[in-house]
């Protein structure tokens, strides 16, 4: 084993311990914030969101990881650049050094993709702030107790060296995983330069299981879900715009994603990766403290393709 691998193994064991050791359950705080449109109000909204979560990031390296998928600025397929910029500004005001990084899963021209999605236009100095995670420097990280069939993964240094990874997905249905939210968004940290486009190794090792493994690897993880306009139907690529009018945030990705599912009227217990990562307790409403809007007050039915209708949360 090379020194680099060894160090990563040690780090991973430590992280895995943080992610899995039984500990007294604390309530996970999740904030649902109403946001009707991509307007300049979002900048103030994100300042208030971060303040409410009491994030201490002064002097820390924060990496924002949006979801970039397609060359369709007019569609709702990508995380909106205004939300990313507002989050970047809010973290900077808290004293953090902020970078943006993404490794799209199937389109290769990441910078062209970001340009088409409006990132260059909206975020000053975007190219200097951005790292294409598909082709970043990589090291192999061993999975101490994998849920998937993987024993190790090559992962990008930009993410491994961050103090706080902020997953910023679009709120979308997903034809294989059911829903793609802050946890599934971490597929984007797996380097296409090593595994290809798409990152088919994750499919063969089990999509839900790999999401759970990535969750274990990145416990220092904050979530900001772009649900202002999401996507329903045959997501994550061929679906339809679905306005939900919310930004969902929190330190516990399982709780954030379970809350998003409730907003989307999807039963979180039927999403494989949520139960693998959080168990029934991690997604239980009683263990999630809503510090913003109540999920029921903003719930909106995300249409599901026929193959996923069993995921529907039915009201009793």
């Amino acid at each position, binding site marked *: 084993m090379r020194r680099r691998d060894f160090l990563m193994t040690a780090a991973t064991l430590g992280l895995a311990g943080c992610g899995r050791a039984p500990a007294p359950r604390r309530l996970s705080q999740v904030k649902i914030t109403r946001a009707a449109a991509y307007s300049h109000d979002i900048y103030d909204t994100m300042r208030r969101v971060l303040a409410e979560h009491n994030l201490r990031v002064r002097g820390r390296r924060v990496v924002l990881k949006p979801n970039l998928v397609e060359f369709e600025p007019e569609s709702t397929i990508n995380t909106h650049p205004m939300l990313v910029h507002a989050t970047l500004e809010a973290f900077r005001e808290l004293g953090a050094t902020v970078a943006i990084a993404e490794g799209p899963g199937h*389109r290769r*021209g990441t*910078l062209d993709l970001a340009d088409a999605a409006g990132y260059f236009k909206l975020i000053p100095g975007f190219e200097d702030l951005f790292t*294409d995670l598909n082709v970043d420097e990589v090291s*192999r990280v061993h999975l101490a107790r994998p849920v998937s069939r993987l024993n190790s993964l090559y992962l990008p240094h930009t993410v491994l060296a961050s103090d706080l990874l902020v997953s910023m997905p679009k709120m979308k249905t997903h034809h294989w995983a059911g829903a793609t939210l802050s946890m599934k968004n971490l597929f984007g940290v797996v380097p296409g*330069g*090593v595994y*290809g486009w798409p990152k*088919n*190794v994750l499919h063969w090792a089990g999509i839900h299981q790999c999401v759970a493994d990535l969750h274990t690897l990145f416990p220092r993880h904050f979530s900001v879900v772009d649900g202002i306009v999401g996507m329903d139907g045959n997501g994550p690529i061929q679906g339809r715009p679905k306005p939900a009018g919310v930004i969902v945030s929190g330190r516990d990705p399982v709780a954030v994603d379970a809350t998003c599912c409730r907003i989307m009227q999807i039963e979180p217990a039927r999403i494989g990766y949520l139960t693998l990562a959080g168990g029934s307790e991690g997604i239980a409403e009683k263990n999630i403290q809503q510090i913003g809007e109540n999920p029921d007050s903003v719930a909106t039915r995300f249409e599901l393709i026929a193959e996923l209708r069993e995921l529907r949360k039915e009201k009793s």
Partner: protein
Amino acid sequence: MEIHNGVLDNLAAAQNPDGGWPYHKGGSWTEPTVLALLAYQAGRAPAPRGGAALAWLANAQRPDGGWTPRRSVDQSTWVTALVALLPPESIGAERHARAVEWLLAQTGMEASPWIRLRDVVRDGRLPDGPDVSGWSWFPGTASWVTPTCMGILALRKCQQRRPSAGLRERIGKAQAFLRSRRCADGGWNHGSARALGYELNSYPETTGQALLALAGTEPEKLHESIELAHRFLREHRSSAGAAWLRLGLLAHQQLPAGAPSFSAPGRTVPDTALMLIAEAAHHGYNVFVD
């Protein structure tokens, strides 16, 4: 032939001290290094530090004959096909022959007997026949369009140099894979044409690559694909997409007169290299085919 000297200078400036090229910035990777070398070959211009680049590549070959995407990765992958596109004398005939052997030994997992049986039992669907077989991005996974196209192009060059029944058979299986994955609109997605019963979208890059890899086969069946490539070329939003479309259309002598040219260097080394390769192909020398 008009060569974009300024762009070649950009490429030279991006070369790392170790001889390889990065994708954008940072350490050297196999794919941009091969594409940069192919760009110099296409421009019939010597790479300023070509010896260092070839030495970097030669030293990166693994004992199994394949190449990793990057030194810190210990697994041979699809990039071996890219290295095999280089002339054998550049990296050494023996190294090249071992790369081709590695390539000939690889298939996507869908071709394995166990997976074929699983597909029949679990999904109730007939798998591809034994005469359909592509290449994966990473061993142990399924075949996809891009690595299959690169495998075909590499083996076809070998076949031109030294024809063999084995090469012809493997190329034929891979071309059958591409034909079986063509989308309803005539183009190519990254992998399948359908998922969960839904038609999938075609993409410019993969459509251009597939046209290039299918050059010389059944042109009468590719009319719709070429029409789609023309449309993609008018609407393209990535320089790599434009380059692959031009290369694919040129391989079928179907690049329309007045097709949009490149207006700016690519943002990455592969983008810039592909642009130069496509320009050279427009002037009669296609390094993927000739």
